[in-house]
């Protein structure tokens, strides 16, 4: 059913995107060894988990994957505490990579520990499932829309922590989500599934910069840029970052000069002008050249912008009227004003 070849890096987060029913869950279950109908080859960091040709099939419990499934799948006969302890106890203390207390507090589970599963809300169940998988100290983490039932603030909170924890653990992660900002925050690598096949795969900036992918994403189209911290502006709590497309001012980051950094810029947050702008609340203005334009709808179009000497691009979503007013054509030089820049660690 699923006919896919995926090469994901052996560390860092790989985002897995795709329409409903495109085979994301099927793929994760195959990697976890839960789907006996999965054929082919699964190799993780040099270890072969599954090789149909060679008759190798490592049992799921020996793969050491942590799997946060779409439905949480908590054990109904156990309390929250015992659900969390289930994987934790099965790892020898020497091999544990996360503290019980740390995970429980981060996911705000302390007040829930003695609850039974049937009385948890949807978001609470998801938090327990995440904690349970992490406490098992997996060597590969599979997360299937792990924060879909969380409200915006707790989602931010959970993702921030997740980001930090994953960096520390250096386990490879495959992360399914329908939210681009979620994936862009965590992932270095992106795979886009369509109808059980890989539609596109590569680094985040590669995949996001592709127009057909951007078109599919709709409101959430955008790019990520890799940069370095150039200076701090302590007074206003800001930081200046150099990127291949120019300098960007972002919220203050407590990090040494020269630290690498990734930022995300949504196409809808980019406006274009022909003249430099003064006395505006927009701090970021980049001088770029239009490379292509594509119509998104009768009213809107997407502009791809670049700069001499780099293949990195910026996407801007503007109205067709503006395009006409500004007479935008490939080759034209413009000022791209970036309203907001999200830092992706």
């Amino acid at each position: 059913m699923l006919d896919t070849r995926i090469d994901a890096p052996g560390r860092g987060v790989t985002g897995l995107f795709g329409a409903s029913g495109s085979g994301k869950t099927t793929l994760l279950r195959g990697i976890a060894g839960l789907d006996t109908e999965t054929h082919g080859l699964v190799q993780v960091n040099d270890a072969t988990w599954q090789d149909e040709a060679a008759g190798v099939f490592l049992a799921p419990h020996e793969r050491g994957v942590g799997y946060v499934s779409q439905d949480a799948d908590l054990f109904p006969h156990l309390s929250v505490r015992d659900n969390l302890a289930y994987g934790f106890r099965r790892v020898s203390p020497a091999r544990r990579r996360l503290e019980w207390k740390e995970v429980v507090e981060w996911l705000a589970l302390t007040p829930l520990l003695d609850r039974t599963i049937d009385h948890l809300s949807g978001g609470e169940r998801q938090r327990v499932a995440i904690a349970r998988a992490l406490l098992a100290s997996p060597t590969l983490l599979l997360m299937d829309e792990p924060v879909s039932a969380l409200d915006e603030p707790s989602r931010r909170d959970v993702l921030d922590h997740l980001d930090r924890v994953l960096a520390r653990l250096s386990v490879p992660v495959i992360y399914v989500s329908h939210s681009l900002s979620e994936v862009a925050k965590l992932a270095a690598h992106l795979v886009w599934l369509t109808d059980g096949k890989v539609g596109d795969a590569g680094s985040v900036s590669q995949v996001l910069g592709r127009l057909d992918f951007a078109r599919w994403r709709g409101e959430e189209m955008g790019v990520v840029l890799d940069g370095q911290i150039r200076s701090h502006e302590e007074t206003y709590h800001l930081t200046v970052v150099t990127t291949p497309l120019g300098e960007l001012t972002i919220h203050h980051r407590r990090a040494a000069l020269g630290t690498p950094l990734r930022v995300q810029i949504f196409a809808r947050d980019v406006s274009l002008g022909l003249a430099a702008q003064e006395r505006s609340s927009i701090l970021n203005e980049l001088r770029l050249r239009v490379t292509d334009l594509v119509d998104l709808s009768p009213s809107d179009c997407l502009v791809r912008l670049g700069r001499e000497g780099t293949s990195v691009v910026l996407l801007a979503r503007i109205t067709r009227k503006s395009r006409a007013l500004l007479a935008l054509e490939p080759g034209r030089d413009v000022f791209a004003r970036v309203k907001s820049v999200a830092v992706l660690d």
Partner: protein
Amino acid sequence: MLFDWRIVVVTAQLAGVTTLVLLIGGTPLAWWLTRTQSRMRPAVEALVALPLVLPPTVLGFYLLVLLGPVGVIGSVWEGMGGPRLVFSFPGLVVGSVLYSLPFVVQPLHNAFRAVPPRLLDAAATLGASPLDRFRTIALPLARPGFLTAATLGFAHTVGEFGVVLLIGGNIPGRTEVLSIALYNRIEALHYPQAHVIAASLLAFSFFVLLTVYALNRRFETPRL
């Protein structure tokens, strides 16, 4: 007729040991039935239920013939140095187990089928081996099935009569059980004694069952 208290002891032992053997043996069988992809499954299911259709005395008769010292199974068994099965406590257990098997296997099979596979999957990704997840997920979730299996198996063994009579030979102190003693009281027209025994048996069983069910209610697994 004096009441021989050894009867109660033998009965309790028989029902206890039989239930234990049934649960211990029925559990893997039921689990196998639940998980197997084998085409033999319906045949095995049918075989398990089969002893039921024979009247217990008839089943007892055939067991006697098969397990007896000249029987097909008995002669081989004794040839291998096994103790005599007929007219002994082990023989009673064998007969009772066979006869009550479906009452244990079927509820367990149903209970195991009701365990969501995705929970077993979740346990696997948390590092639990098949045996481990059977023990920590399937067993606890199948608890109502075990309760039913144990009560049906136990009660059925206590009340069973024909198999035990034929295989056991109703030997006082060794294979004489309450059901036979009770029946013989009635046959011998010792009605008052029979009534006392029957009433005690019912009252005792009622309170045991009541306790079991009431306790069970307390520890019910939340339903999702």
